[in-house]
């Protein structure tokens, strides 16, 4: 099947935008009338629903931030009462209080529809066996992919995270054709398979990876595709939007954001100005159809850009590029912006070291000091200290060129850096400011 819903997915752009305008207008009226939170926000911004005349008038509306959800913990912004809710998800509160997302039955249906379209665009459907190796539970990844996969008629193996050897056995025994997990977990699974003497390419039917929940790079894609003999696709979402919602299609040129579900903008994180397609900035999303926890101009904090051209696959909905970094993950080292993804990208080009790394930032005297710990590959080990010093010197040089900041490199034993089975935590910041 080419499209899950061809009428919507291939709808001419002008019609799509007309549809978005109508949805936006009714959303704004509804929230202004019934949500104290949005009512106050719009008043503060001096904007009334009557001021929304075109789709581009979305610019007049106030932004919403993660802190708004934390400040209104657990459910003060909800626009549905508890008896209309059918589920809660709770995001990990790594940087503060957790955030709670509630869902009505319609919210769950929209979420599942979004994923059904996305998974179909990867060529998946009836006959596929999809192993869902995202965490099941309060995290949205597991259950989201679970219902999306079932909706398209695929067979789900709900393995959740961990117990990797068993996952590999099941993959062989049940003929898994696609796996949904974090890119770092797939790398880990590949390494464990090698240790078990299992060749993913020859000994399994795996042909598709649905990878997300943490940033990854084009180089990682090429490496995983060659190594494991699969097609690796980016999936995107956050719990505030419902969960994982959008994926790339088989063209692999950015994830399609379904226009009837969400309106995407790219915002300059400093000025709040809307940026044009092709310009990098903060991804900002308005969910056009959401009952329990509406989102208007939600500043997600991910840095990327939009491509609004019609895709070669025929879908007219805008595509968003792979996430380049986080507004709040951005490290400032001696005044220079550094993203962990840049380090990853640079390391991929150095054959002597592995793909796992850890950044340790410290302050030596008045200066920031950045250390990158990276695993020495087995083939590159030399008994001579001078050879090893040469390798660490080479890595330092390449990183300095990529980041424009001086970096110290420490070679560590292969397999010694932590492999996180959930979201990777690759930065240790010891600066006390």
């Amino acid at each position: 099947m080419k499209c899950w819903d061809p009428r919507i997915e291939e709808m001419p752009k002008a019609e799509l935008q007309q549809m978005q305008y109508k949805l936006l207008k009714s959303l704004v009226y509804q929230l202004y009338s019934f949500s104290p939170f949005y009512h106050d926000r719009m008043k503060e911004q001096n904007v009334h629903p009557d001021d929304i005349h075109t789709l581009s008038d979305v610019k007049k509306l106030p932004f919403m931030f993660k802190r708004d959800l934390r400040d209104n913990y657990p459910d003060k912004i909800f626009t549905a009462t508890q008896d209309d809710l059918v589920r809660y998800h709770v995001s990990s509160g790594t940087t503060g209080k957790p955030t709670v997302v509630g869902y009505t039955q319609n919210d769950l249906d929209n979420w599942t529809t979004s994923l059904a379209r996305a998974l179909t665009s990867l060529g998946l459907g009836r006959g596929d066996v999809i192993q869902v190796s995202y965490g099941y539970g309060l995290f949205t990844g597991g259950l989201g992919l679970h219902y999306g996969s079932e909706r398209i008629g695929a067979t789900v193996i709900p393995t959740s995270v961990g117990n990797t050897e068993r996952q590999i056995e099941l993959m062989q025994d049940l003929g898994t054709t696609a796996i949904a997990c974090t890119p770092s977990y797939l790398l880990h699974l590949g390494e464990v398979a090698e240790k078990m003497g299992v060749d993913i390419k020859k000994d399994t039917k795996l042909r598709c990876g649905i990878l997300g929940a943490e940033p990854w790079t084009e180089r990682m894609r090429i490496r995983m595709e060659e190594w494991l003999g699969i097609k690796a696709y980016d999936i995107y979402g956050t719990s505030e939007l419902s969960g994982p919602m959008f994926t790339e299609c088989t063209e692999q040129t950015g994830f399609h954001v379904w226009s009837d579900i969400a309106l995407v903008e790219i915002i300059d994180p400093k000025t709040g100005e809307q940026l044009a397609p092709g310009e990098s900035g903060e991804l900002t999303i308005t969910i056009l159809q959401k009952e329990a926890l509406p989102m208007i101009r939600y500043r997600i904090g991910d840095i990327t850009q939009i491509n609004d051209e019609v895709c070669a696959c025929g879908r007219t909905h805008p595509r968003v590029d792979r996430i380049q970094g986080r507004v709040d993950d951005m490290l400032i080292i001696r005044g220079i912006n550094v993203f962990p993804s840049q380090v990853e990208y640079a390391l991929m080009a150095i054959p002597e070291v592995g793909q796992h790394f850890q950044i340790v930032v410290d302050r030596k005297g008045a200066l920031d000091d950045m250390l990158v710990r990276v695993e020495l590959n087995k083939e590159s080990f030399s008994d001579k200290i001078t050879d090893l010093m040469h390798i660490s010197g080479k890595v330092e040089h390449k990183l300095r060129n990529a980041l424009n900041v001086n970096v110290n490199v420490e070679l560590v034993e292969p397999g010694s850096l932590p492999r996180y089975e959930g979201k990777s935590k690759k930065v240790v910041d010891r600066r006390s400011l």
Partner: protein
Amino acid sequence: MDVKKYVVKQISVFSENRPGRLAAIAHALGEEKVNILAFSIAEASGFGVVRALVDHPEKAHKKLTSLGFNVAFTEVIAVHMKDIPGGLYEVAKILGDAKINIEYSYAYSGKDGAVLILRVDHVEEAIEKISKSGATLIESSVFH
């Protein structure tokens, strides 16, 4: 002469510079009943290389690799020294006169006298030069 019999197989292990790494290596070798005849640690910033002469290098390599260590074999040569004052000088002078450049070296003193272990650039050429110059090379079969 058959130079090959004087080529000694040393194991080299990459190790992070933190407490407990040597113990982990030594424990693994002990478990495999591998005896360490001599060893040294070379250190750089953040990491080091543990080099050891053992009685069963293959067994040691296999065990350490299975534990995730980065292990390599390195060819070294062993020269007999007199275990008396001036013993090292005698050998070192011969090597110097023969223009043999030492990359690294370590030594031990056992019941059959003292032994100098050398890592050089061109092993076979060095073996020939050393044996011509009057020093006594030790065959690898003595170790393993």
